[in-house]
């Protein structure tokens, strides 16, 4: 029965990952990160992703406050934040978010406030979605660790 739970969890993981790749939300860089996990750093991916979440939320807040300033929208500063966001997103394989950043940056370079607002909303939406899905993924992986651990007492 424990074996079935582990199998089910593994299937859940694969299904979720397949979905995320198929939708273009994640790309192969995410797989690369997973390949870097080893015994010395079994939580490497979730650690990096949590740093990414932390940084991203700061960047999103900054972008929003820059855009809300109707008098002087500092498009230059927006560009800097967007470059950072693009960079870190591509580093973890967050392909869709990175692509929205590219569009957002194009709008900011044209001082197109309406375009920027639209892009920001899309960015916030994509970010929320990714965060939820990755939390789901990490939860499943936690359960897998637990499922594997429960086995041991029974082996005696």
């Amino acid at each position, binding site marked *: 029965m424990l074996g079935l739970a582990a199998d089910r969890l593994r299937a859940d993981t694969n299904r979720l990952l397949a979905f995320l790749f198929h939708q273009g939300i994640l790309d192969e860089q995410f797989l690369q990160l997973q390949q870097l996990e080893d015994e010395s*750093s079994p939580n490497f991916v979730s*650690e*990096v992703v949590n740093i990414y979440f932390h*940084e991203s939320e700061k960047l999103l807040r900054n972008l929003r406050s820059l855009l809300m300033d109707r008098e002087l929208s500092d498009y230059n500063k927006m560009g800097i934040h967007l470059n950072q966001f693009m960079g*870190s997103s591509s*580093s973890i394989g967050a392909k869709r978010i990175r692509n929205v950043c590219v569009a957002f940056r194009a709008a900011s370079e044209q001082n197109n406030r309406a375009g920027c607002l639209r892009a920001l909303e899309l960015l916030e939406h994509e970010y929320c979605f990714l965060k939820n899905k990755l939390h789901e993924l990490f939860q499943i992986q936690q359960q897998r660790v637990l499922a594997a651990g429960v086995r041991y007492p029974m082996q005696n």
Partner: protein
Amino acid sequence: MEAAGEVLRSGSSQELHVLAVDDSYVDRKVIEKLLKISSCKVTAVESGARALQFLGLDGEKGALGFNGLKVNLIMTDYSMPGMTGYELLKKIKRSSAFREIPVVIMSSENILTRIDSCLEEGAEEFLVKPVKLSDVRRLMKDCIMRGETEVKEGRRVDKRKLEDDNRTSSLSSSSSTPSSSPSPPSSPPFGFDVATSELISSPPHSSKRAKLRDSD
């Protein structure tokens, strides 16, 4: 062969010591992991200024970093606030103490003029982000090969002297000196006889390295 490789490596350990420079915490974590998995010692700093501090370029210390380990390779992001990776590259290549340390530039943007100017200033390679394990492994191999070749041919010691001699009489249109400028990794060894024309024309590996991304 083994002795040759050890000369390049830091201290008595077999590992290469890499100084990684990136203002993004996410990227620092990733590059650190990539390097550690490739059996390197890593020092990750967040800015060009910190990198220079570590090297002792802005102070009185010599060629050793604060923890006494010689730096074998510098990998730096291009776009950083304050000092860009390009500016850091120039400072390093213009210092007598550190110009021999290979410098690799990383950038999430694939801009040909950017790539060319970095290579012209003496960058070893220009990597388009996100950096992969295969990129790092190849760098390690190139670094090691470079070190072994130089020692084998007895040139490492003489290089600096010859550089200074050549600097004034340099014919190259690029700002870097002929003998120290790296030729593309695909054509070992790095020797004195790198023709000036090779330096002027765009090295073949810049287009190989700069993978085109459709989202740009």
